[in-house]
């Protein structure tokens, strides 16, 4: 119930944070929202010797749109995206995902980037950022780099961040056409991690065909996964009953779920199929007013 004793550092700049991370290396952990880290420390599953609290770094706060991207700073809390109605037109998946994360007090504290860096395979943002083809902006002693989301998750609780790199933002591409999205999730109880989750992000071209189709799978593998085959079947197609049937059948093929207390692998795969069909149908209705025919 009580974390181990640790040294507390509260840098006020990214450079200072990176310096501290370099100095302490694996002995340190970065504290942002702390809604995953602190519970693990309380249960003493995690016991860092140094905690580097980045909450005082002004540069990490807020989001802005520039250069065809939405840059979400590392201190943006889940609740900020949940309530940012000004983002709904272009980035509807953000609030649709945010409202499924844990519960409101946790959403007031936890951060988007922190959740990505924690790399829990059940993370809601993981699936959503896969669907959005996001990039994680990190800063280390060597400077900045962007890590495409598909290269970001390495394994359960492991990312491709170097030990002295700080995730400073996540970049979401600005869509180039009409956009709609759904985040589908089944929980054992409200606020629980997903039994299975699916993020679907669709941008249409001028002819009403799918120009960008992102489908991220949550809680069905060691890391958040991309439904590659389904995406390939979706690109360039109008959203018809036929497309929905094909795509939704393909989604589970890229999933890698395990049997556990939440259900069997077969069950989770089928949930993904059902979610995909429901999401695409809702998206078609939203974008076209109905599901189209060939």
């Amino acid at each position, binding site marked *: 119930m*009580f974390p181990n004793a640790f040294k507390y550092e509260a840098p006020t700049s990214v450079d200072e944070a990176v310096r501290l991370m370099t100095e302490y290396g694996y002995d340190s952990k970065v504290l942002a929202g*702390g809604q995953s880290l602190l519970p693990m420390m*309380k249960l003493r599953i995690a016991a860092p010797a140094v905690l580097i609290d980045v909450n005082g770094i002004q540069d990490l706060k807020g989001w802005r749109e520039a250069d065809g991207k939405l840059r979400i700073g590392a201190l943006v809390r889940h609740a900020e995206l949940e309530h940012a109605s000004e983002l709904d037109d272009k980035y509807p998946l953000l609030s649709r995902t945010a409202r499924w994360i844990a519960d*409101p007090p946790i959403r007031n504290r936890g951060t988007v980037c922190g959740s990505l860096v924690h790399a829990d395979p059940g993370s809601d943002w993981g699936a959503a950022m896969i669907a959005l083809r996001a990039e994680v902006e990190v800063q280390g002693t060597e400077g900045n780099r962007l890590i495409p989301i598909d290269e970001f998750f390495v394994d359960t609780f492991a990312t491709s961040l170097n030990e002295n790199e700080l995730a400073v933002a996540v970049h979401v591409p600005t869509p180039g056409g009409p956009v709609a999205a759904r985040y589908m999730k089944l929980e054992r109880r*409200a606020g629980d991690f997903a039994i299975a989750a699916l993020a679907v992000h669709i941008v249409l071209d001028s002819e009403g065909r799918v120009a960008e189709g992102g489908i991220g799978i949550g809680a069905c593998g060691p890391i958040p996964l991309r439904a590659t085959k389904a995406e390939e079947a979706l690109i360039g197609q109008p959203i018809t009953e036929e497309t929905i049937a094909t795509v939704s059948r393909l989604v589970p093929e890229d999933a890698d779920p395990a049997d556990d207390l939440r259900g069997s692998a077969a069950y989770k795969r089928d949930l993904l199929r059902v979610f995909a069909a429901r999401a695409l149908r809702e998206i078609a209705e939203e974008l076209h007013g109905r599901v189209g025919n060939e």
Partner: protein
Amino acid sequence: MNIRVKVNGRLYEADVEPRTLLAYFLREQLNLTGTHIGCDTTTCGACTVLFDGKPIKSCTVLAVQADGHEVMTVEGLESNGQLHPLQSAFWEDHALQCGYCTPGMLMAAYGLLQTNPAPTDEEIREALSGNICRCTGYMNIVKAVQNAARQMAGENQEVIEEAAVSGTSTD
């Protein structure tokens, strides 16, 4: 470490160990024992307080992180000896039984009404979904929050009406 934190409008300076969780700081160093602790996984919400105006779970924030911030606990709801409408409504509508979840529930509801003064039942349930109650089945809690919202709207209405009256008298 030394911290300066405003709790229920009063500034406290204290020396805390970095690992001290905000909930324990409030309870054991400030003796504000209305903030309760009911789990070890950030699930139950009994420790919910307002942190810079927003509900958070104080068992999952370090006391040192409150340095320079404002915290409001259940003890800060009453003003000038008057119960807050939420407190009165919880009493009137039998929205508590053992009372252990009540402070966290009140603070989560308070946070909701700050941003959404006229919530639907669904919105209330969503806002309180991080606060577990084992006794009431939530029905009366939702009812109490609705009644408090109505009463608070009525109070605001009165203020507006008074302003309007004084406005016409100076015309």
